[in-house]
């Protein structure tokens, strides 16, 4: 067990955590952009747009993420990082679209009417009036989605040998032989995931309580 928790090893794992967080952050940001488009299409009232949005959401809601990772990596032949981000974006944007749809529906319809009556265009209406209000309500849900995404990036090592936290942990485990060492490394890796995800969940919970309190007033 000596020399297991050296700076080199710890840094190695933390770099893995870095790529995990980087991939999931980029993916979630892209998903928000794409999801916003899908949500607006879904609520647009135009048959064609809302039909396409519904089909998109149903497809990605009812198929596994791993399949899309394989798809972008093997079928679309993208480089690992691009494939990872594309797969996560496609998959997560379906969830995010539903979150945003919920958020948009939560904005009082008076807000739409008021903005229209003041002569705002549709783009202005959403960008300046509706989305800022909706966003406040969506933040907890989006953060939870972020946690889910962080957890799911653990597929990337197995699927395309991308060295995120799980991958780094596996590489480290392979370079030690004793059971105790492997046990410790695995435990550390799991603990890092837990700490990151659990603290984010606590943030979500605290934020939700605050919103609830604010609404009770």
């Amino acid at each position, binding site marked *: 067990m000596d020399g297991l928790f050296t700076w080199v090893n710890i840094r190695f794992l933390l770099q893995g955590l870095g790529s995990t967080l980087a991939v999931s952050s980029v993916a979630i940001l892209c998903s928000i952009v794409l999801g916003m488009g899908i949500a607006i299409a879904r*609520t647009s009232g135009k048959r064609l747009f809302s039909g396409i949005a519904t089909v998109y959401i149903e*497809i990605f*809601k*009812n*198929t*596994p*993420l*791993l*399949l899309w990772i*394989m798809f972008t990596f*093997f*079928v679309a032949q993208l480089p690992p990082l691009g494939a990872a981000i594309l797969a996560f974006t496609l*998959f997560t944007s379906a*969830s995010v679209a*539903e*979150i945003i*749809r*919920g*958020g*948009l*529906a*939560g904005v*009082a*319809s*008076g*807000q739409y*009417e*008021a903005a229209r009556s003041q002569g705002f265009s549709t783009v202005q209406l959403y960008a300046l009036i509706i989305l800022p209000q909706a966003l406040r*309500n*969506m933040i*907890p*849900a989006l953060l*939870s*989605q972020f*946690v*889910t995404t962080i*957890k799911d990036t*653990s*597929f990337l090592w*197995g699927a395309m040998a991308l060295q995120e936290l*799980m991958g780094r942990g596996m590489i480290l*485990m392979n370079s030690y032989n004793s*059971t105790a060492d*492997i*046990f410790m490394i*695995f435990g550390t*890796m*799991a603990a890092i*995931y*837990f700490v990151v*995800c*659990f603290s*984010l*969940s606590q943030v979500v*919970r605290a934020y*939700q309580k605050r919103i609830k309190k*604010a*609404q*009770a*007033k």
Partner: protein
Amino acid sequence: MLDTFAGYKWAALFAKWPDVLAAFGTTVLISLLALIIALALGVVFGAFSSSRSIVLRGITRVYVEVVQNVPLLLQVFVFYAIFPLLGVSMGSFFIGVFAIGIYHGGYISEVVRSGVGSIHRGQFEAAKSQGFGYWQMMFLIILPQAMRIILPPLAVQAANLVKNTSVLALIAGGELMYFSNSFAGSTSYYGPVYVLAAVLYFIICFPLSRLALYLERRTLAGHNVTTGDGKNEIPEDSTEVTPGTHDITGSAAADSLAAGVSIMQDTSGIAPAPAVPSPRHPLHVLSDPAKGESGRGEHPLTGNRAALAADEFGKELQQEQEDAPETHHRRGHSAKRDANGAKPHDGHGKGE
């Protein structure tokens, strides 16, 4: 790019139809067995989390938080890579059944907890006053009534479980995803097999999520859902919810899970927004509820709101249970000698 989906590649895939069928069957079988384990764990731990014992509640909390905040793949690897070091090894089929069963057991226990929390406390009191034991009360009185709250998010969990069996591909699980990978790897015909896998997963998951939607709508149609008996038991302000909120762990997870249908993956519960505008908007008087959002938004009590009300009751119930020993003591002097140990009723008798 075009010949990614060339005809001969499809032919090669369909020539292997018995293997496809076997892999599909394995996915279904693993899902079913894992679902049984998840249900068993979910009911037991869900009942634990509404019990009086702080130890049982603590155990449940730890179980749920660990299972929900550590990636599923890591949990699978505990069985796959760590247990063998301790001398326990099992085939990837049973690893799948147990790991995924335990994982979703954590989620289902939160669903059950929120369902139990939705039952009017009069039901608990009535059951106890009739001399039911804790588990008898749970299985005979409470859970059957909580079913309507529990079922919609349960169907969502079932769909998620099926999707999550794909993780087993990474430990050579022999199921659909693994077959797809190995077929793609061995023939380098990547296109068709993943499309077919997507279709097959969709065939299982789509009906489940439709079922969830149907169940939720049916539940919402019956108004006496949340309290189990009363129609207008929920004060309006306690059901005011932020639309689209959810949580990945803890009490709010139950809210979002009970919001159910819109949960896409693991924990992302996306509740439809209530059409009733927030009282904080000065302009809310302008809005016309009849013109509100289409679909589920029209319901007076949408999933998230119902769930919040449910949680409200759960908390109340828990509070009451915490207070119970004292009050029981105080009452005890007069009531203890009552025949059959029946407790005196308080104002909630109307709940029967």
